[in-house]
Structure formats: C-alpha cells, structure tokens
C-alpha cells in the first residue's frame, strides 16, 4: 500500500473506529464519547483536506479489492468524491457538535452516536466509491445505519417512518442492484471512468442501456427523493433534528443525488447519454419534483415537514443540472448545488431543532415573534431560507445562476421557467416563516420553554447553525475566490473535460 491508500483507509477508519468504540462504551461516559466523536471528525476533516490537496495536484488515490471476478471493491479519490467527502465531513463535525448538545440528557446516546459515526463512514464510503458495486455496497449500508437513527425515539410515529424509509430505500436498493448487475452483464464494468463505457455498446444495446439507466436512476432516485419516490422523506422528519440534518444535508438525500451524478458523469458518460437521449427524461422528472416539492411544502404547517418537502424540491436542482450534461455551466450549477443545498438545509434543520428543543416549537403557526426570543437562531434560519429562495449573495443564488445560464445555453427555456417558478414558490413558503418570526407578535407563551445556557440556547446548539449560516453567506460572497465550492466544482468540470 502506498500512502494514498493508507490515507483512504484512514479516512474511512477515522469515523469507523470511534463508532465501534462508542458502541462498546458504557452509556454514562459522556465526555469520553464526545471527545472521541470530535477527535474522529476533526481528524477526518484533516485527512480529507490532505486528500483534496493531493487530488488537486493530480495524485491518484485508489484501493482495489477484488472479491470475485467481475466484482471488486474500488475506492477512488477523484475531484467529485473529494467534493462530497469534504462536504460530508465538515457537516458531520458540525452535526456532531450539534447532536451532543441536542441529546444532552436523553437516553441511549451511545447507540445513537455509534450509528451516527457508522453512518458517516458509510457516506464517505459512498463518496469514495470507485465503481457501482462499491457504491451499492455503501449505499445499502447507509440505509441500514440510518434506520436506527430514524427510529431512535422509538415512538409509533418514528417506527412507521422508519418502516416506510426502509421499504422505500431497500426497494430502491433492490432495483439498483438489478440495474447494476444488468449493466455489469452488458458492459462488463461499472467503474467510474470519467467518460463512461465505450460508446460501441450504444450501437448494440441502446434499448437495454436506456432501460438500465432508468432503473439506476430509480434506484438512487429513492434516496434523492425524486417524485414519486419521495414518500419516505417527509415522514422521516420525526427523527431528532441532528438526524434530519444528516438525512437531508449530509448523507442520505445527498447520497442519492451523488449517485445520480456518478451515474451520469462516470458510469454512462456524457457522450453516451447524449447518444441514448434519456436525459430529457431525467430533466423532466427533476423539474416535476422541483415544482411538486415546493407546492407540497407550501401546504405544511409543521416546520420540519415543510423543510423536508423543500429538500425534495431543492435536491432535484442537482439532477436538473446534471441532466443538461452538454452544458458545463449547468453541470457546474448542479454540482455546486450539492454543496450549497447541504449547507443551507443543514442550517435550517439546526435552527428548527433549536426551536423545538428550546421552545418546543414545531409548527410554523407557533413561530410568531420567535426571532425576538432567539434572534441568532432566526438570523441563521433567515440566511438559510433566503439562500433557498436564491437571494444573492447567498450560495443558493450561485447555483441557480449557473443552472439558468446552462439551461439557456442548452436552449432549454423551460428550465429557466422552472427555476423562476420554483424561486417564487420557495419564497412563498419561506418568507412567511421569516415574516412571522421577525415581525409577528408573540401569542401566548412558548409551548415548552427551557432556558439553556448563557445564550438563547445551548452554545453547542447555537454555534453550528451560525457557522453554517456564515458559510452560506461567505461561500456566496466569495464564490469566485480560489478556495470555494464553486472553484472546486469548476475544477471538477475541467477534469471531466466538459
């Protein structure tokens, strides 16, 4: 093994080993557990940054583990995986801090944090997967590791949510498996090559390959919550806030979207897909999802549910961007939205969690004037929400801008229309919240108010959303700088030669 392989292994182990230790730790050792968690996540960020640097300078990171002929595990660090891995690891650190604060005093924490760490290990595994089989491996493991988190509260509702999540995710996984095997059978490899399989296969197997593409997209679309495969996501919001953050921003939904990116960019490759002509289908589904998610979000009074539908809508931007594969600008928009959506949505969920934890607020109708009680939280929330709408200078605007430009370049006016309508709808469901919070008058007392810590709530609950909100702003303001998600995404697109 060379140092690159050691690095990849270390990246995976840096959360896996803490996870296993945490499982073994007795429930009462809070401090040790927290230290382990934080050390693991900081170490992971450092390692991933090292990998990023290596990737930027063209180093090749790869581990191959043949299992049987035709099936091999392949971990591979390329710019795209670096993007996702960096996002996940940074957000994991914040989510860990948040979760420590959020779950203070609640039972079963060792269980929770154990799965939490495993979940992140698996997510990083998804990021680093170098072929569809490895991707599938981690993809399925993600389902298994998030399931205990979703049902962590053990209530009937959460159990039902967990069950539905499983039904959706595992069915999707099964379809995915089928498609992967089929692809392997037809093409002979599922490696992420950057250009896709040789286009000679298109001549011979066009129909089958199109069908497989659809199946693959269905497989990952379940996690990416493409309509009509989105049913699990709004229900899963019964989970504790850190888990929601994990689901929506760090791991699950992102894994689905990342899968779409991988399939389009690496497995099939732009050229092949243009030949097959299946991308308009993806674009259509993504557009429907964007509109549908927004419309459903409008109807929700439960804050987290509204956010969940918003995720459904927002994540499809990624799919929409990537479906305009011949336009590098659109691809940039889609890719960078992977990061941006994560940052924004995690801010929103953190804030929603803060409201629930500190004031017992779960519904939007209870939020009147809440910004006076928790100005910092709501400031972070507002930034996240404005970002979702796409108000400059937040990152949301950057994604939308590139998407729009790309769509125009492709001559797809209707995509611009979708973007416009979706922005309007986003405004329709986010602005009223902000108005209530900032300008509404408090009605009665808060449902369950607690005074936690010196600030408006516990510092560990307050800091993560503020940090992410700051990043949402800052990453937008300096979008064009040398080090920004956008810059990295441009690097990716350059690497893919689009």
């Amino acid at each position: 093994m060379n140092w690159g392989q050691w690095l990849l292994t270390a990246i995976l182990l840096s959360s896996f080993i803490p996870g296993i230790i945490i499982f073994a730790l007795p429930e009462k050792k809070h401090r040790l557990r927290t230290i382990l968690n934080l050390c693991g996540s900081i170490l992971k960020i450092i390692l991933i940054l090292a990998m990023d640097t290596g990737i930027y300078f063209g180093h090749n990171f790869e581990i191959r583990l043949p299992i049987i002929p035709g099936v091999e595990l392949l971990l591979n660090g390329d710019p795209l995986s670096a993007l996702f891995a960096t996002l996940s690891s940074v957000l994991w650190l914040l989510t860990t801090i948040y979760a420590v604060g959020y779950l203070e005093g609640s039972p079963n924490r060792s269980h929770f944090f154990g799965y939490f760490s495993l979940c992140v290990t698996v997510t990083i595994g998804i990021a680093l997967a170098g072929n569809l089989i490895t991707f599938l491996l981690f993809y399925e493991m993600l389902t298994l590791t998030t399931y205990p988190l979703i049902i962590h509260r053990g209530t009937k509702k959460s159990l039902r949510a967990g069950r539905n999540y499983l039904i959706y995710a595992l069915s999707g996984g099964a379809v995915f498996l089928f498609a992967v095997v089929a692809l392997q059978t037809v093409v002979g490899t599922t490696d992420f090559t950057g250009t896709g399989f040789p286009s000679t296969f298109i001549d011979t197997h066009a129909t089958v390959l199109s069908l497989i593409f659809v199946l693959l997209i269905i497989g990952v679309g379940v996690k990416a919550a493409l309509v009509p495969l989105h049913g699990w996501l709004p229900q899963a919001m019964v989970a504790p806030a850190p888990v929601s953050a994990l689901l929506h921003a760090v791991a699950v939904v992102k894994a689905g979207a990342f899968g779409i990116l991988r399939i389009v960019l690496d497995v099939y490759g732009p050229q092949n897909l243009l030949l097959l002509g299946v991308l308009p289908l993806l674009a259509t589904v993504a557009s429907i999802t964007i509109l549908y998610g927004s419309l459903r979000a409008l109807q929700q009074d439960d804050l987290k549910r509204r956010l969940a539908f918003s995720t459904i809508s927002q994540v499809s931007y990624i799919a929409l961007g990537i479906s305009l594969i011949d336009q590098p600008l659109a691809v940039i928009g889609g890719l960078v939205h992977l990061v941006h959506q994560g940052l924004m949505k995690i801010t929103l969920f953190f804030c929603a969690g803060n409201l629930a934890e500190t004031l017992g607020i779960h519904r939007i109708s209870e939020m009147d004037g809440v910004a006076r009680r928790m100005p910092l939280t709501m400031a972070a929330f507002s930034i996240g929400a404005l970002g979702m709408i796409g108000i400059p200078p937040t990152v949301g605007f950057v994604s939308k801008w590139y998407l729009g430009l790309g769509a125009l370049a492709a001559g797809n006016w209707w995509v611009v229309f979708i973007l416009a309508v979706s922005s309007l709808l986003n405004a329709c469901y986010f602005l009223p919240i902000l108005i209530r919070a900032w300008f509404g008058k408090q009605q009665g007392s808060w449902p369950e108010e607690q005074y936690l810590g010196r600030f408006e709530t516990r510092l560990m609950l307050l800091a993560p959303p503020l940090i992410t909100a700051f990043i949402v702003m800052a990453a937008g303001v300096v979008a064009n700088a040398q080090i920004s998600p956008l810059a990295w995404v441009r690097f990716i697109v350059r690497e893919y030669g689009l």
Partner: protein
Amino acid sequence: MTAFQLAAPAWMIVPIILPLIAGLFCFLFNRRIFAIALTAALANLLGVCILIYQLLFFGPMRCHMGGWQTPIGITLRTDGPALLMLLTTAITGLAVTLYARGYFSYRILNPRHAARHQQQQRYFWPLWMLLLTGLNGLFLSNDIFNLYVTLELIAISAASLAALSGKPASQLAAFRYLLVSLLGSLTYLLGVVFLYRSCGVLDLDLLQNLMQNAPGIRAALALMSIGLLLKTALFPLHFWLPPAHANALAPVSVILSALVVKGSFYLLFRFWFEVFTPIITTSALNFMGTLGAIAIVWGAIQAMRQPRLKLMVAYSTVSQLGYLFIAFPLTRIDGNIHIWGIVIFMAMAHACAKSAMFMVAGTVFLHLGHDRIKDLNGIRANLPITVFAYGIAGVSLMGLPPSGGFIAKWLLLSSALTSSQWWWALVIIVGSLLAMIYVFRVMSHFFVIPEDYAFTKPTPVSPLMEWPALALALISLLLGLAASWPLYILAQGNVVLAQIFPGGLP
C-alpha cells in the same frame, strides 16, 4: 505409516470417525460430555482444515475404505464442494457446540426444570455428535448406498433432536419429520435400486461414466430427487420444516436449519450437476427453478405473517432454500461456469446466517421466556450483542452488501441476466425485498427501547450464547468480502470452474 503423511487420503476419515467416537463416549459417560464434544468439534475443524490444505496442494482425493477399490468398496472423496460443506459444518458445528453449552447451563440454572434440562443435555450431545458424523459422512461419501445410510443416520438423529424439548408440539413435529424423512429415504432407496439394476455399480464416479439414456436411470434420478426434495423441504413439500425447526430447542433448531437440510440439498446438487448431468433436461431444470421461485416467495410471505420469531426464522429457511434451487435453470448456459460455486457458496452463507439467527432467537426466547415478535421491544438494552448479531445475520439473509448472501445473489443475478433469463432475476429481487420486510419487522422491535421500558436485569445470559451467534453472523458478513477464497477452494479439481481463476487466488 503412510496414514499419517499429510498427503494421505486417510485424513478424510477424521471428520467422520472423530465425532463418531465422541458420540459413543458422550453416550457412555456421564461427566465431561461437553469437553468430549468440544474436543471433537475442534478436532473436526482441524481435520477439515487439513483436508482443505490437501485439496489446495495435492488436488482432489479418493479414499478407498478398507483398501477396496471400486466397484466393490466404498470410496470417500474430497473436492471443492464437499470441503466447503464440511468447512461450513465444522464452523457452524463448533459454534453450536459452544452455544449449546451456554444454552443448557443457562436453563439448568432454573431450579424448576433443572432435571429436565439436564436430561435433555445428557442426550443432546451424543445425538449431535452422531448427527455430525452423518453429515460429514454424507459430504464425503462417494457411494450411492452409503449415502442412503448417512441420510438415515442424519434423519434419526435429527428427528430425535427435534423431539428433545419434550413439548407436545415438538414431538408431533418430530414425528412428522421422521415420517417424511422415512418417505424420502425410501423413495431415494427405490431410486438407488433402479440405478443399481440399470448400472450395476454404486460408486458415483463409475455411475457418471455409465450414464446413458436408459429410462431406468432417469426414473432413478426422478425418484432420488423427489426423496431428497422431501428432505430438503422445497415447496410444496416444506410443510414439516417450520414446526419441526421452530419447536425444537434452540441449538437443535440451529443444527436442523443450518446443516441438516443442506445435507440433502448437497446430494441433489451432486446428482444434478455431476453424476446425472448428461441426462438432465432443460425443462426439468426449469421445473426445479420454478419450485425454487415459488418457495422464495411463499416462504417469505409466510415468514412475514408469523407472530413468533422462531417460526419466522424457520419460514425464512423455506424461502432461502428456494434460492438454492433457482440456481438450477441457470446452469444450462454456455459459458456460465460459476453457478456451481454459487450454490454451495450460498448454502454456506445461509448456513452461517441462519444459525446465527436461530441462536439469537433462542437467546431471546430464554431471556424473555417468549418470542412473540410484537413484544420484543427493548431487548436491545439487555442483549446488545445478540441484537447486533441478528442485524448482521439479517443483512446476509437479505442479501445486502457486503455479506456472503449479497455475493451469492449477485452471482445468481448476473447469471440470470447473462443468460437473458431475467425473470429469475426478478424473482430473486422480489425475494430479497420480501426478506427485508420480515427481517426488519423484527429488527424494528429490537431497536426500539420504549420510553416506559423497565431496565430489569434478569439472569444474564452466558457469553457462550451471545458470542458464537455474533461470530457466525460476522462470518456470514465477511464471507462476502472474502468470497474469492471459498470460490477458489471450489474451483480446485474442477476443470470447468478452474477457468475462473486461471492465475490462482486473486
């Protein structure tokens, strides 16, 4: 002293004769039975390892009993499939031995039933050891009549074990099981008779050479297959399995579900893919596949509705056995060479996972005094390792990566698609989805600690009950990552299969 050289075929006797002697001693002595059994199980594992070493370095072997060559003597042989089954049996057997020890000592702790459980333990060990003898004999034997004797050995010990718990339900189930076994054995024997009258030899190698298109031989194959199908509990002949497996003592359930059904299946595999291959028709293969497909779905659906954990696991066995048969129609394709390996590999993965699951079910039952699925909430608090083991075993049963079950399923799927028989692939996918439902139905209860859960601490279960389950579950999981090794072993001495690994172990 040629017998003790490493290359000597006589090592093959070890897995047969050691448990046999252990069985005799276990019956004879009153004390230290566990020590005897454990020694035998360990030595058995060691012996199997030596055999694998032999296979890898000296190739497949024949051992002529009493020095008599075929056709008059009985021959034992080692090759990939046989050794993998032996290895599975040895590993599972060792785990079961440890588990049974923990199980019985836990039960004997309860003063009310101490005597009964002591009595059960007294007979469990010799029966189990002789069952192990029978299984090892079955896997090694190369003689069609000797196989009948081993089948009977297995049938009698298995039926006795199934009845061991003394509960009326288990005895009724055991009686049925015994009758079905008898019917199966007799049908098999009738087949043997037909075969002997047609070919005049009993050795499998010789039979393979004499294979011709005679109706007697075909009838023999049909009869033997039906007999073995009865014993393997393939749908629609599975009716005896769930009650027998679910009502037995936990270690017995493990043995029955993980090993015993695999024995008869192994024979079917041998006959269809080795001895009788020239006369097998495609429609017959498809027929077996269809039965397997129905079994997958039916077993899974039944498992989904079971109120009790052990019954659920038992029906899951019915379903999982279907996978082994769905592989049959996939063999008839040119160039599809590794289906062979898949079946045995799958049996191996299933054996490990299923035994872990039954161990978990037994532990849970002992711990709670029941195994009603809907009342299992909160068990995680007291039996974390057991629950973890269930989860991992479940992963393998569902065929999720990276488990052994996944690799097996992958291979099946890829063969189905390569041969463009996508409908089998569909069944496999549906089956694994259904498996997910029944596995997670339990899991959701395992994972939840309700808010009003009383953290009482009943007698802590022995680590001997928790760890073997976890170990087996982990083996079934890691089997996926290390799949190349068993497949490599399978490839040894098999001309067709060896093509997959032209350059040796990857």
